[in-house]
Structures are given as C-alpha cells and as structure tokens.
C-alpha cells in the first residue's frame, strides 16, 4: 500500500513552526502561495485547565486500556463520539480527547468531523470551506492527503466534513469509508481516529459510522439528557450497529458540577 500519509510528519513540523511563530500574515502567505494546506486552528475555551485536563486524562486512560485489551472484530483505535440528542458536548469532547491524546509521545490523532447536522468541528477549526470527508467518499479521485489537514496543535490532524450531500449516510456506510479508516490506521505511527458525529436521534449517518467504530463514547449531559432519549439512542445503536456492550460502548457524563468530578483538588497552573 502506498504511503498515503508521508506528509504527516512533514506537516507536523511545519505546523509546529506555524504554531510557535506563525502570525496571521504568515498563514495568509502560506495559503496564498499554496505551499501548505490551510492550518486548522484548534481553539478551546478558557477554563480550569488543570481540572479539565485531568478529567480528559481519566477518559483517555480508560480508552487506552481498551485499546491494549483489543480482542474484538472492531478496531478500538477508531472512536466514535455521539449522543442521544444535540448540544450535549460531542465536539468539545472530541477536541478535548484529541488534545489529551496528543500528550502521548508515540501517538497521532486524526479528528474527523462526521456531524452532517451541524459540522461544528469544521467551523471551529475554520475549515468549513475546505475539501472534506464527504468529498473524499464521493470522489474516487481524491486521496486521503487531500482531506487531511494539519492543525495548530502538534500531532493533531483534522478531516473536515466537506460539502454537504444528501447521500451522506450512505457514503459513510460505504466500503470507501472503511478503507479510509484502514488507511488512517496504516503505518508505523500509532494513530487514533476520533469521529465527531451527530446525535443518534437526529442523524442517521451516526449509525453508519458506528459500524466502523471500535469504541463508542456516548455523551450524556447532566440535567439535559433525558432517560427516554438515552434509552432510545442506545437501542438504535444496538439494533443497527452491532451489539452494544460495555466492551465497546462507554458513557461520559458531561456538564456536571465539580462535586462529581474525579478530580477533587485542582489548581490553575
């Protein structure tokens, strides 16, 4: 198989350069000259970094433990983040997890925006008008490197959604999607693919993506997710995307108060 991602390491170093020293003017020059792809901007809100970082680390450790204990038919390095209903924090979860995985020395993270409903991830990374996942799945001529964008964070790459299509669920359920994931996992580098999908009850493409995912992270927000909706969402996944058990699906309780956090004592630094 050809090296589809030879540029990852190269763009990585350039991204670092852009991160540390780039200015908006330099970015514009790079884009104008066509030397480099546009760099995705990873911005997160200002919050209690130490606490949030630790909370993401807890999640990451669980997921890495599952990767090491892989014994099933699904690749546990492919992580699908979904929820029952919109606005429960899937995109923020995907970004936070990506940044947390970035700390691992020998791992790279590919963030895929697969939310056909809102494409929030692409918008946040300012890649909304770029070629993306749906373009790749629909156009055989495109290669993976055409839709893979370095970001301002070292080790984190982004795949935007691309132009919306009415056949998005079918495209995501296609073999090309499977091949894309295999390609992303191929190589010597340990790559983790995080797919930010839409909510189960509002986006049927999520079920299609779930068939490819080794780990499904189901987000429920405190005071927002309703029991009936969570039950129904998990039921849909179970019926249409293979068995739902604790080896493949885990829940994350989002938007909780600090008293429920596993990190009890934290300070800003």
């Amino acid at each position, binding site marked *: 198989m050809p090296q589809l991602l030879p540029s990852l390491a190269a763009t990585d170093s350039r991204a*670092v350069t852009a*991160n*540390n020293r780039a200015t908006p003017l330099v970015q514009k020059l790079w884009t104008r000259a066509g030397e480099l792809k546009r760099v995705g901007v*990873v*911005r*997160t*809100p*200002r*919050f*209690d*970094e130490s*606490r*949030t970082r630790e*909370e*993401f680390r*807890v*999640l990451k450790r*669980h*997921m890495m433990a599952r990767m090491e204990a892989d014994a099933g038919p699904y690749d546990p390095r492919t992580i699908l983040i979904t929820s029952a209903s919109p606005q429960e*924090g899937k995109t*923020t*979860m995907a970004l*936070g997890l990506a*940044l947390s995985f*970035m*700390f691992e*020395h020998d791992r790279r993270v590919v963030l895929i925006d697969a939310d056909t409903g809102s494409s929030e991830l692409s918008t*946040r990374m300012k890649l909304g008008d770029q070629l993306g996942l749906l373009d790749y799945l629909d156009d055989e001529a495109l290669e993976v490197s055409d839709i893979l964008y370095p970001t*301002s*964070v*070292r080790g984190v790459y982004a795949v935007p959604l691309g132009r919306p299509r009415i056949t998005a669920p079918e495209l995501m359920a296609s073999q090309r999607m499977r091949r894309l994931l295999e390609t992303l996992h191929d190589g010597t580098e340990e790559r983790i693919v995080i797919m930010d999908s839409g909510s189960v009850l509002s986006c049927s493409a999520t079920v299609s993506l779930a068939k490819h995912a080794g780990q499904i992270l*189901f987000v*429920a927000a*405190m*005071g*927002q*997710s*309703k*029991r*009936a909706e*969570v*039950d129904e969402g*998990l039921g849909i996944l179970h019926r249409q995307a293979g068995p*739902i058990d*604790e080896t493949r*699906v*885990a*829940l*994350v*309780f*989002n*938007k*909780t*108060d*600090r*008293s*429920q*956090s*596993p990190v009890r004592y934290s300070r800003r630094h």
Partner: protein
Amino acid sequence: MASMLDPLFALIKEESRRIWCYRWLVAATTLVLWGGAATYVLSLPSVYDAWGQIYVNGQTPLAATAEGMSLVGGGYGSPYVVQKTLLNDDNLAKVVLRMDPTAASKGKAAFEVEMNRLRRKIHFARDPGEDFVELHVTDTDPARARDLVRLLLNQFITRNVDRAQADLGRAGQFLDGQVAAYDAMVAASQVKIAEFRRTHPAVAALSATAVDNGLAAPRSAPATVAQAAPAPRSFAAARRVSELESQLAVLRSAYTEQYPDVIATRRQLAQALIARDLEEKAALTAAATYRPPVLLGGYPPRRAMPAPLPPAVASEWNNLQRNDEVLRSTYQQLLGKRVATHMSQAVYGADGAGKYQVTREPTVPTVPIGPNRALYLALAGLLAVGGGLGVGWLRAATQSIFVSTRELEQAVQLPVIGTLSWEPAWNTRPPRPPRLARVRGRIGGGTPNPPVILKSYRTTWDSQP
C-alpha cells in the same frame, strides 16, 4: 450515624441538583407567583377598627326586688352575656337593615350572609375585674365602622333598658298584688284579735298585765300614787328599735349590706337594742324596790289578781298573736321591696343612663390596623419560593433527566467512564452583538463583529514535550 445519613444526604444532593437544572423555571415561577401575590396583597383595602366603651353594671336590675331569691345568675354584665345579647339575630338584623335598607329585598340567603359578615366584624374586650365592655368593629370604611359601633351600642342599651323596664314592671305588679293581699290579711288578723278580746275579757286583763310587764298594781293605784311612781320608759326605746328595724329593711331592699347607710343603721339599731335592755332592767328594779307613800299608813285593801286563762284559750290567743306578728313582718318586707322596685324603675329611665353608661363614644379611626402587608409579602415570598421549587422539581421529575453518574449507570446498565465538569467558558459561540449593532450590520453600516479572543491550549500544551 454519619454513614446512616449518607444515603439521605446523597438523595438531598441529587434532588437539589435536579431542581438546579431547572433553576430558571424555578426563578420565573417564583417571580410570577410572588408578583401575583404581591399584587393581590397590595390591592387589599385597609381595615379600620372603630370602638366604643360601655359600662355595664354586673348587678341585675332585679337585684333589689329579688333579694334572697335566685332569679338570675351572677353573670349579668359579663362580656359573654353582652356578646350573646348583642349578636343575636334579632339585633343584627336590625343593624343590617339600618345600614342597608334594601338588604331585606335581596333574599333570605343574602340577608343571612350580610348578618354573618357583620357578626365576623364585631368582637368584644373587657377590662379584667371591671364592668367596662369594649365593642370593636373592623371595616374597610372607617366612617361605616364608627356608625356600626354606634348603632350596636344604641341597640344594646335600648334593648336592655326595655327589658329591664318590662321586668321591673312585672315585678311591681306582682308586689302590688302581694301587698294588697297581705294588707287584707293583717286587717283580718286585727279583727280576729279584737273579737277574741271581747269574747275573753280575761285575755284583755292578762294582756294589759303582760304589756305593763307586771306593773298593774301601781297603774291601778290612785292617781297621786301613780304619778309618784317611776314612769315606764321602755316604750320609747322599743319604738326606737322598731323604727330602726323598719328603716333597715327599706335600706336593704335598695342597697347591699356594705352600703354605708345600711351599716350606720345597723349600728344605731344595735345601740338602741342595748338601750332598750338596760331600760327594761332598770324599770324592773325600780318596780321591785318601790314603796309608795301610802304604804306608810298601811296597805290598802289588796286587789284581786285576774284568774289564769284556761289552756285552750291561752293557746288560741298565742296563735293569733303569732300569726299577726308574721303577717305584719311579711307585710313590712313587701312594702320595702315595692319601694325598691319603684326606685329601680326610676333609675331605668327612658335612656337607661343610670345603668348603662357609654364611657367612650365611637369615633372615626384614622390609622388602619391592617392588613399587615409586609408580613403578607414575606409569607407570599416564602410560598412563592416553595411553589417555584415544587414546579422545578415536578418538571425535572417528569422529564426524567440525569443528575448523577449513579443514576445514569443504573438507567442504562453501561459503565460511565468519566465526567466532565461544566465550565462557564465552555460556550464557544461568539456572543451576540447588541441589537443596535445587528441592525447596523443588516443595513450595511457599522463595524463587523469583533473576533472572539479565547485562550488557546496552544500556548500551554505546545510547551509539553
């Protein structure tokens, strides 16, 4: 103990979280409830308390007439009696009709409602140990409250004076009849005694001997001798005693035993009794030691003593005397009570001023006594908060939201591998510009929205190896 309470604390914490998730609903509900309650409380009319004070003697008007008899109880002037007398349907109906002459035409039910409403406005107060009764009427119209008090007091006085006068009139009629009957009986008794004396001359002689207390011999002596003997002065003391007893009976019919005139008369009567006893003893002694001058020349021929009465005649004579005495005594008492009744009737004149004194005329109150709006608003606030919390809890319960990882795990039977705390800065959407700026942007003018500057992980995380 703490471990036993842990589940309870956890439950309280979860329910608090559940309500907190709907805090805006709670706040809105509280605000709406409190606003409604506050509007209602502030729209309540002010209530004024008009009151008047009346003096009601605790003694019944029939006290003098019915002395020694339990015709009425002791609670004649108690607030309870006054209240029951004043708040009976008859009185209230009259007052309602005076206040609203058209009330009778509204139907029986509406009229009773009006009466009950009036009854609820009235309450009584009394100084402990005194005979002053305060009548309070609360109303939203101060002038109407004053008028109600005035009407009620007038109604009470009029009704009681009428009743007292009627009672005293009936008592007077009864006493007049009794006096007339006893008058006839006393006259008949006198006739009987006179007839008995005529038919039994020995009774007359014996009576004279008994009356003169054994001094028949000196009285039967010649005039010169009789004039020289000491005069029997016990008759004057006896008359004084009789006069004082009669006067005391009259006073007791009108006054109590503690009345100063009664006490003074009793004292005079006691002195008169002592004086009478002393004079009687002195008269007996003088009679025993007296030696008329004619005895110096020898005793006149001894006069024969009257023969003793036969037992049957003596017994009948004694009965006649005793009956006469009882009749006279009762007759005197009846006369005293009739005088007292007439005096009471004079006291309870047309206005009853002698018995019922309005010691404070009702006036128009200027300061309202209620409602206590501050207290009501505070209570309404508490209730509104409670209502808001209840609505929030109900909303959370019907929505069946998750508020803890425990609930989530139990519900879906899948592991919850972590939690993420909510941070105020999680919202990455740019804030909406002010309305004016949006309008400017829509019409093409103004400046574009400023970029959102958010701290990036970049500076922090890129420093990691």
